[in-house]
């Protein structure tokens, strides 16, 4: 009664000003940090990238686009791009398929649904450094992976594929990247499972009931109904996955050091950038790589948007 009539009274102008002032005060610290560390950073990175830069004295000599040209013509950077693309092309579909498979399973009416969901997501909670260190230990020449496959008699199969009993999975040029792909498919499949689960639960039951009445089997229902109706889910997971894949870094650095050993097998675009900045201390070159990387990621996102439809809710 009184409250309602008071609320409907026109707002005094100085009250509006007080509200605006409070608003600005409440967001002041975050906006200041974003302004310097995000917006400012991009402008600063563009500026640095066209100079020869000295850590102590700043800009030394204007070089224009020379850093960009040097990067694109460096064979090691080309290797880094190739490795990163290879990783993306193999890891993204593999992990999406695994995540979708797990999501469909835990979306069924099964006993212990919560437990299985929690268990499948479990590998995703650990830090990349811990899980990679652990993985390298497991995949070492004398590690348990090689021992277990010997024990269960799989070695003939592996030697058929050209692997010795003491295969050095992370230290061999031919298997290093695939070993990282396997690790990240295992850890990230749980995250993608959760993404897909949210998407699966938005499909109405009526569609499935109609399919059941028409006598559709489980596989047919999945292929003709679930999979196509998950299109927004596919788009969202694929976008997140590709952005993540193009930024592969932690596992490559821990597995192969700052040079992506062995023989550049683990050299990725971000590792190349890190190498330029903190091994060669060539900051303007690293800034240029950062811009190139940003353009690549942005383009990939736009291309996916063109191919698969509209932007997600965020």
């Amino acid at each position: 009664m009184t409250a309602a009539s008071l609320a409907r009274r026109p707002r005094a102008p100085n009250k509006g000003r007080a509200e605006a002032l409070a608003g600005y005060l409440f967001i002041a610290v975050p906006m200041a940090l974003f302004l310097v560390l995000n917006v400012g950073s991009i402008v600063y990175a563009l500026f640095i990238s066209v100079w020869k830069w000295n850590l102590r004295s700043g800009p030394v000599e204007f070089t224009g686009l020379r850093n960009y040209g040097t990067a694109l013509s460096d064979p090691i950077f080309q290797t880094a791009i190739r490795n990163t693309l290879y990783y993306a092309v193999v890891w993204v579909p593999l992990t999406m398929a695994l995540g979708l498979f797990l999501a469909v399973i835990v979306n069924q009416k099964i006993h212990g649904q919560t437990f299985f969901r929690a268990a499948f997501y479990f590998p995703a909670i650990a830090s990349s450094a811990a899980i990679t260190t652990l993985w390298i230990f497991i995949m070492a020449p004398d590690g348990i992976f090689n021992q277990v496959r010997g024990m269960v008699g799989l070695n003939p199969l592996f030697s058929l594929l050209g692997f010795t009993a003491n295969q050095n999975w992370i230290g061999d040029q031919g298997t290093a990247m695939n070993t990282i792909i396997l690790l990240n498919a295992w850890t990230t499949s749980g995250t993608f499972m959760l993404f897909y689960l949210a998407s699966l639960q938005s499909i109405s039951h009526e569609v499935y009931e109609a399919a059941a009445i028409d006598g559709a089997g489980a596989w047919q229902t999945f292929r003709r109904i679930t999979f196509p109706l998950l299109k927004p889910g596919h788009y969202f997971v694929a976008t997140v996955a590709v952005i993540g894949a193009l930024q592969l870094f932690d596992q490559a650095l821990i597995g192969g050091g700052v040079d992506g050993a062995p023989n550049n097998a683990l050299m990725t675009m971000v590792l190349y950038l890190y190498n330029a900045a903190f091994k060669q201390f060539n900051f303007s070159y690293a800034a240029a790589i950062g811009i190139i990387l940003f353009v690549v990621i942005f383009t990939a996102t736009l291309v996916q948007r063109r191919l698969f439809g509209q932007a997600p809710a965020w």
Partner: protein
Amino acid sequence: MTSPARPIRADTPVAIAPVGDRSWAWRRRLAYTLLIAYAILMFVPFAWSIITSFKTLPDSVRLTILPDPFTLQGWDFAITKLTPPLPVLFFNSALIAGVVTVTNLVLGSLAGYAFARLRFPGREVLFLIVLATLMIPDQLRLVPVYLIFNGIGLTKGVGQYLGVILVVAISGTSIFLIRQYFLTIPRELEEAARIDGAGFFTTFLRVMLPLAGPALGAVAILTFQGTWNGFFWPLILLQDQGHYTLPIGLLFFRTAGGFATIYPPLMATVVMATLPIVVLYVFFQRYFVEGIAATGVKG
């Protein structure tokens, strides 16, 4: 498996339904067995790191489940002989993750409230900037942020802590999550408080903040986990070994520190890097799962 080895033939004088039932029961049992096996497989590597941390060095490469002999040597080595030692790494990780969680809660709830409720010119544009920060890859910011921090002395001494905290002191995700939650709370509640003469800050603190529990819980868990596990910024901004966090310590031991194959203490460090998050996961699993599903942003 207790099911018969031979399937019942179709022409045996048994009703069709039991045959179907039995084969379904068998299939279901197989499915559950596979599911449980796969679930166990998820835990095996972590269990292996715990087991190995209690083994001796020669025993650490043997495929045995029980350490023989059981020893605390690996832990003792990690705590006293590793450089930087395990307690220092743990302290640094806890300090940085703890402070960053608090700053995200304080700054995120203030800003989230302002973007949800207060009217001020430019609000929509400023909120777009908040969302845009989520799209900028950290690698693009590496050089400028490092040079700015280096220029103002945040890459030396205690400044390193400050630098690594500042760069993640507030995330767009935290603001976004809390704002979305505040939008769901009816306006009447705070209008009543406003009429009683409460200022904007008092209304926020006394009326709105106590209602935001679930959102604050999700932000706290996601921020703590993300910062505890953080790799990129600590790697760039923590220069002295004495300031390393657990993930950077692990990288150092493996690549430059010369401890790459001294497995028991290495695995003890892996256990310490993982255990706090596992404990959080056991108690607050709901926040992890819902937070990830709601934002679609990891960490």
